[in-house]
């Protein structure tokens, strides 16, 4: 062995290692340890307190036969697909509009981004008020003359998720617009010149040249937005409290209720493990695409 012995390596720069202790503890104890703990205990029949009495997949069987969980998953998928498509499409379109060398760009950007500074609680409460059937949009349109106009998403189980979507898009599209705008500004000016010389119309240049070039930006945005959607919680709590009935329940709410109010810990842990699984389904292909091809070190 030519290098210093392992003892010497371990105790070289002791201050640097002491300083890294919080990070090491966070990664090992909370992120790795906590996740492993949750997965292990999801196979037990823990009720009020965690107990290591294994019951196999029983919690998962109960989870998937629970209609509330089924509704939660359906809601999240519905919300997720629409939120993903609309956030990215609207975010990109707004970025393109702002990229047209317009005046007042800063003003428009400020206006579109400010909701992102607000919490989901504030967002949910404001939209709960605007969509209030007695006083909000519905009553205003009726007052204008359309007497039987109906737009009451927060009290209609069939479209309640779209009521949440309106609020979610309001809060999040500005953020995506900002990332996309940064991506557009990163496209080489020469590409635009070349496209113009070749007489390619602007919209074609965007669609067939710029968008493919911005692939990494789109993928990053996709991952961020998707992992945000899976965590969807505060917005629902504030805007609908999961109602009417169980029509706007989401998985994060199910987890919280079973862990902290229904005192059925095993069930809550099984539900949160399913949430972890859904994140992995998003994350693993992305990590493979990002890091799988090239070796970094």
């Amino acid at each position: 062995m030519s290098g210093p012995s392992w003892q010497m390596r371990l105790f070289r720069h002791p201050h640097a290692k002491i300083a890294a202790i919080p990070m090491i503890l966070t990664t090992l104890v909370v992120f790795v340890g906590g996740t492993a703990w949750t997965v292990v205990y999801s196979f037990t029949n823990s009720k009020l307190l965690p107990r290591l009495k294994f019951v196999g997949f029983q919690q998962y069987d109960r989870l998937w036969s629970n209609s509330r969980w089924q509704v939660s998953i359906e809601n999240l998928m519905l919300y997720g697909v629409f939120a993903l498509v609309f956030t990215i499409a609207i975010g990109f379109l707004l970025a393109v509009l702002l990229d047209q060398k317009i005046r007042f760009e800063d003003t428009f950007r400020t206006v579109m981004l400010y909701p992102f500074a607000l919490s989901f609680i504030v967002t949910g409460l404001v939209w709960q008020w605007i969509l209030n059937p007695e006083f909000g949009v519905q009553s205003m349109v009726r007052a204008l003359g359309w007497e039987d106009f109906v737009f009451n998403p927060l009290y209609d189980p069939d479209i309640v998720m779209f009521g949440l979507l309106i609020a979610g898009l309001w809060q999040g599209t500005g953020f995506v617009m900002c990332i996309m705008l940064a991506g557009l500004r990163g496209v080489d000016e020469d590409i635009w010149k070349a496209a113009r010389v070749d007489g390619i119309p602007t919209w074609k240049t965007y669609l067939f040249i710029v968008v493919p070039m911005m692939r990494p930006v789109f993928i990053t945005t996709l991952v961020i937005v998707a992992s945000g959607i899976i965590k969807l919680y505060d917005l629902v709590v504030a805007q609908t409290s999961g109602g009417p009935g169980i029509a706007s329940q989401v998985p994060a709410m199910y987890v919280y209720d079973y862990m902290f109010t229904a005192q059925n810990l095993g069930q809550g842990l099984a539900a949160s493990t399913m949430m972890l699984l859904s994140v992995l389904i998003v994350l693993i292909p992305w990590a493979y695409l990002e890091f799988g091809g090239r070796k970094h070190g």
Partner: protein
Amino acid sequence: MANVQSLQGPRGTKPRRRFSGRNIMIYGTLLFVSLYYILPLWVMVMTSLKGMPEIRLGNVFGPPVDITFQPWVKAWAEACTGLNCDGLSRGFWNSVQILVPSVILSIAVASVNGYALVNWRFKGSEVFFTILIFGSFIPYQVMLYPIVIILREMGIYGTLWGLVLVHTIFGMPILTLLFRNYFSSIPEELFKAARVDGAGFWGIYFRIMLPMSLPIFVVAVILQVTGIWNDFLFGVVYTKPDLYPMTVQLNNIVNSVQGVKEYNVNMAATILTGLVPLIVYFVSGKLFVRGIAAGAVKG
């Protein structure tokens, strides 16, 4: 010399007519979209300035006929959650008490992490960093209960410091990334020169890295102030009712099932809660954008 340039003729793109069809389309769309973004803020402010009789007449979008600040006073000092009727002020001060130590501690820890990761690599440091970044994608729900156990073992479950620790832990991935990227842009020669002069780990951190990276500290503060102020889940899970942060108390006030709904008070309470991040946003301007971009676009 100056004349030579002007002899070369006009430069830049051909000026466009101001009212071309294309411009009308662009500005028209942008103005229409802006309406969607502005509307809730407008409705919030207008509703909070109306009396309840005026609200019952309908039209949430109109400005108030009689401006009253009573709802604001009530929201701040009198609104009830459960048995407490001392308004949102309680939640506000709780949030401030949570915010200040959380912001300081999380940034202190993360900046040291970033510094150690760039300048004092040790075996496995990159592995920890990778776990940290992937850990930021794990849904919080997965780690909620294990952290309850950890805090209970430490004896700080349900206290202010428990919540501060939780914010430090969950702020770590993004902030460490932020500082690591920033410190790696500082020339290494500077670090080596200080080493030659005999400066140690903390000496270099406090005398060289800290003074050189004030902008990134400002970005981190913006990120953390808005993030921690807006937190709801951790506040609910890790504190007790008399320590609830403002967001939790706001939700309890507005969504309480008891009593007559006072929409004007609710909206005043909602603005009050949104005010801190809004002020941070409008004051910080471009730095806010930089903060969120730092979180989004990774190297």
